[in-house]
Each structure stands twice: as C-alpha cells, then as structure tokens.
C-alpha cells in the first residue's frame, strides 16, 4: 500500500488525506514541509531561549558579554601566564578569544542538542510538532550568543589593531558563514545522534561532557597547531574541528598553519554526521515516547 510508506502524503487514489499515521515512515521521509509550517514555533523557541535565560537578573543580557571575556582572561592567565604555552606570536588574549569564540559555538550546539528527547519528554508527550524544531531552534539561538561573543571579539580585535599589534585580518573573513555552517552541522549532527541514543541509554548523555572536553583539548584552542610535534600533528588534524578553528584564527588574526583545503574534510564530516543524525532522529521520534 502506497500510503503505508508515506507519513504525510496526498493519496489521490481514493480521497485526499492530509495526514496519514502509520507504524513506520520511510527513512527518506523527513517531513520537512511540516517543519516549514512550524517556522513560527522555531522563531519563538529561539526568542524564548534568549529572553528567559536572563529574566530576573540584574545585568540581563550583559551576561552574554561577561562570559567570553571572563573565560579568555582565565585562559590567558593560566595557559599563557603560568604554563607559558606559545601563541604563534599573537597577543595571547586575542589568540584565546578567537579560538574560544568559534569553539564555543560548536560546543554549545552539541551540548544543547544532545538531550532533546529526554529533556523535552514532558512537552513531546503532550503535543505533536516536528521534533526537529527543538534542535534547530537551539542551533539558531546559539548563533545569537555566538554573535554577541563575536562582537566582543571584534571590539578587542580593533582595540589591539589600534594599539599596534601585528595582526592581519584578511579576505578569509568572508568565509565566516561557511565556518559557522560547518560548526552548526557538526554540533547538531552529533547532538541529535546522542539525543536519539539517550532515549534508550542515559549513559550517552554522560559521555557528552567528557567527549566535549576531550575534543576541546585535541583542538588548537589553547595551543597553536604549529606548536604540536610533527608526529602527533595528524591526531589534531584528524579532529574535524581543527581546520575550522585554524581558518577562523587565520582570517581574523592572520596567522594560521593549516591547509585551507582541509575545510572540505570538516565540511564533509559535518554533512555525513548531520545526515546520519537526521535519519536516526526521524526514526526515533516515532516511538521514543514508549521508551523514554
């Protein structure tokens, strides 16, 4: 039966049905039309994330600015001041801030999408909407916080430029949207794979914390790729986040030691992870309420 395969289809043969509910949808049926119909929901979820976080706080959205500065100061004091790690000759503060700004977008996308099913079981159990709306809105609202961090970063960049640091922002800056897309794809892809896994096994969520830490230290955030010994460099390069961070730093600060072509590796990785993630997610969203 044709209708058996399709979750949402117009079956012209007998009567037009707007919704067909069946045990299993075809793996390729992602119901993207549904997602489009619920775009206002995505918009509101993004807005809610942004507004609700700082309600009943004194400084409100100011906290968005405090976060990145605070983190970078700590990095500067510990990794540069105490541990004396090299920074490719760049001002340590800007070096860490650059790495942190782009990395945080990835890590926040990953962690905010890795608990979709269990974290929203209450609402998922009561109303239908395309489940993908939640992770997508998370990725978009993280983009807003990235924007704020990025503004802070640019302010410091301009300050350092005017105070005569040897920095060379260049045309690679135009690649920023591509870099963000790759980071979002990877974060979202891994996140929803973990989400799908946590519906049966809670262990997966525990792993995310360790995984993110491990990934961060294997990315050139607190150290430049150039300082990694040659025989270990493949390990850091195997990390698909590495090219994105290095290209980002190269674009804004002018020093990078990665072949920009490696971005294709990152992009490919993001695409595959995202595809697998969406397919698994679609499979799980059908019946996860029975096991969650």
């Amino acid at each position, binding site marked *: *039966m044709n*209708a*058996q395969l399709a979750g949402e289809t117009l*079956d012209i043969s007998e*009567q*037009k*049905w*707007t*919704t*067909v*509910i*069946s*045990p*299993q949808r075809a793996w390729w049926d992602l119901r993207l039309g549904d997602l489009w*119909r*619920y775009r*206002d*929901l995505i*918009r*509101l979820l993004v807005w*809610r994330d942004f*507004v*609700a976080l700082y*309600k*009943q706080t004194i400084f409100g959205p100011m906290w968005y600015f405090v976060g990145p500065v605070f983190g970078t100061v700590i990095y500067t004091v510990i990794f540069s001041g105490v541990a004396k790690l090299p920074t490719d000759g760049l001002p340590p503060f800007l070096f860490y801030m650059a790495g942190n700004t782009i990395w945080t977008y990835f890590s926040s996308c990953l962690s905010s999408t890795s608990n979709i099913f269990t974290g929203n079981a209450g*609402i*998922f*159990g*009561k*109303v*239908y*909407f395309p489940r993908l709306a939640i992770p997508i809105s998370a990725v978009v609202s993280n983009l807003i916080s990235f924007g704020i961090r990025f503004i802070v970063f640019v302010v410091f960049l301009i300050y350092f430029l005017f105070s005569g640091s040897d920095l060379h922002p260049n045309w690679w800056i135009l690649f920023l949207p591509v870099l963000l897309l790759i980071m979002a794809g990877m974060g979202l892809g891994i996140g929803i794979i973990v989400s799908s896994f946590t519906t*049966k*096994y*809670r*262990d997966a969520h525990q792993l995310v914390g360790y995984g993110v830490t491990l990934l961060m230290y294997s990315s050139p955030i607190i150290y430049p790729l150039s300082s990694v010994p040659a025989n270990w460099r493949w390990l850091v390069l195997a990390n698909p986040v590495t090219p994105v961070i290095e290209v980002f730093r190269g674009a804004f600060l002018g020093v990078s030691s990665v072949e920009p072509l490696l971005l294709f590796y990152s992009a490919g990785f993001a695409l595959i992870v995202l595809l697998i993630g969406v397919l698994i997610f679609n499979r799980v969203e*059908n*019946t*996860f*309420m*029975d*096991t969650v």
Partner: protein
Amino acid sequence: MSNTVISIENISKLYRLGAIGTGTFRGDVQRWWAKVRGLPDPHLKIGEKDHGNRDGETIWALKDINFQVQQGEAVGIIGRNGAGKSTLLKILSRITAPTSGIIKIDGIVSSLLEVGTGFHPELTGRENIFMNGAVMGMDRREITRKFDEIVDFSGVEKYIDTPVKRYSSGMYVRLAFAVAAHLDPEVMVVDEVLAVGDAEFQKKCLGKMSDVASGGRTVLFVSHNMGAIQQLCSRVVMLDEGKIAFNDLAGVVVGKYLTMGLPQQGERLWPDISQAPGDDVARLRGVRVLDQNKRICTSFDVRDPVSIEMEYWVLRDLDYLDASFYLYSERGEIILSSIDNSHDTPSGERKRPAGFYRSICHIPADFLNNGQIYVQAALTGAGNRQAHAIQKDAISFTIIDRMDTGGARGNYHAGEWPPAAVRPMLNWSVERLPLKPEESKSSEPIVN
C-alpha cells in the same frame, strides 16, 4: 452526504514490558549476558502481575481498532483506566506511532492532551500566549488576530504582562485553556482538560467545546465525565482492554458504561423454601426489579418507571402481613421505605391466608434520582412489627441520567443534578405579581 474525516483502520499498539531496556547500556549488557548463560533476567521485577491482555512480555494496549468519524461529528471515547484511551489519543496526536494499522485524517489536527504545554514560568502571560499558540500549531498572524479574544476569554487581562510563575493556579489554567479554546483546527482531539478550574470555568469550557462541535468541526473527546460526554458527543466509542466494546449513540454506550462492573442483580430467587430467608410464618421466594414491560432490568433512565416485585410464601393464615422494602443509595442512606398495606387498605383486604403471594410496588417515572440503588426486602407482621424475613441488598439497579433535557430536569442542562435522595417531578405555580407602589420607586422593575 457525510464525509469521512478520520478513518482508523486496524490500529494496534504493542508495548513491551520486560524487554524494554533497563535504561542503561550496562543493564542491557547484563541482561544479554544472563540470557547467554541461561540465567533469569536480573532486571525483571519479581512477582509482576499479569494483565489480561498480556502476551508474554508484551501487552497490547490497543488491538485492531476500527472506526470512522464523519465531518462535523463529535465522538466521545470512554473506558476504564487502562482500556487504551490514552494510547489511542497519543497515536491520533502523533506522539507515538502505532505498531500496526493506519489512520487517515483529512484536515489539520490539533490535540489538546494538556493545557499550557510549552508555558515557560519566566515569560509573561502575553509571551506565553504566543509560545503556547505556536506549540499548538498556530502561526503568528493567527495568534495576533485572536490575541484580544484570548485575553478576554481568560479573564486575566490585568496580569497579562506579569510572568506566569506569579499567577495563581486558576489564572494559569484559565489562560492556558483560553489559548487552546481559540485553536481553529478542522479536527480536534481533546483529553480530559476540563477537569481543571472552578465550576463556572468548566461551564465556560464546555460551552466553548460545544461551539466547536456544532460549528461543523470534528471533535474526538476523551473523558471520564459522562455528563460532559453526553452533552458534547452524539456518538461514543467505549474501549475495553484495548478493543472496542461498544460504538453507538452516546446515551446507549454511556448507559452501558455506567452499569458496567457494578454488582448488578435485578433478581434474587430462593426456589427452595427451606433455604429461603424467613421464619415459620413467612418466607421470601424472590425479589426483582422490573421495567414498564415487566422485564427484569438493572438500568433505568431517570424518566422511566420502576417496579419492585416481591414473591413470598405465607405459611399460616395471618390477619396482617406487610411486604416492604427500603431503597438505599450507594452512600448507604435510605432513600425511601414503602409497605404494601397502607392505612386506607380495607382491613378485610389485609388478611393473608396461607399461600403464595406477589406484591408489586410501582415507583413512578421521574421520581428516583440517578445513582446506584440497593434494595432491602422485608416481610413484617402486625402489632409489634416483628420481622419474619429481612434480606439486605437483595437486589440492586442503577438510575441513569442521560443529561438530556426533560423530566424533572426541565431545561436545565448545565451539569450534574444535585445528589438529592429523590428527583420527583413536582408541581410549581408561578405568578407575576403587581409591584407595590412604594417599592416601585426605590427598586428596578423585575424583568424575567
């Protein structure tokens, strides 16, 4: 020509009980390892009770459900806890997928399994209206258009810019329902959201729901409130253990539901005189409750007459014997007592020569209130009123209120009748009085 809007075909839903996964990867590995070594599952609960429709380690929450809903129809779904109502709702609302079968729906479905889904405590009432509306599937323009109406309906306009965490629970629910009430879907699936709020608000909700139903839209309504079901729905599907028990007119199915599982006994017989309750003077042979066609019946409409029949042996010639009964309510209160002889019975007719007798009491229509009724039958003698036979809870029957107007209810259709002992249809006289001149100056004329 009616047009099928929802077509439910062979829907089944299987839940796995034991094998659902222990929740951790380690637990599943342990289970697998135990299975490999032929040991019992370390994660299975000891002494788990079997359900009736349990099949090994699985349970069919729904099995082969088939029914159709036509355009503009309001269909109620009832059943005891665990009958499968919620599972069916969840499948219809696309919260979980069926195990087999298919449901075809023509139109946009909104399901209201809860009010206020997506409400965020930190957001204001205004913000939550938009949030909740979007979760329910409304788009921004639609919400903006209906915003004033929603606020008006909720009655919280004074606090609309206050975070909902500061709302009283009543205000919260009113706001939440207001949003839900302004959904405008072609098909609406509603769970018992009406079990919230005060009586006045519930009335408002019911009114809104019947507007939806009478406005040509299709409504599926799950509830335990038989009054609401009968008020809203023309047809009712009753589920029992995952199957459709009845699918018929609302009054018929509700009647069956109300009398289901109750210890009904419309007749009690003691054919063997030596075992019958009583003494050497008189003994009961049988007690039964009959409808107007003289058939034994256990459920009556409030507007039906009820007859209580007693058969008894009188073992010696008596000058006087009463056959009598008490009717008890389910709360254990005596509703009434009646005796087959009254003071105007000529004394000659009170004699009871030895023999076999039948006494029938005719309780008029529109007299008993709705509820379960238990009958205590007795045979009592003269003078000292000694009892020859008393049979407590001899039989029982149910009076059903179908909530339609008429009878003692008149045009009152707003809800349950008060739990009075009886509901007789009484005569009233109403007259309009002329206003006294001195009062007409100070008070407004009464207009009715």
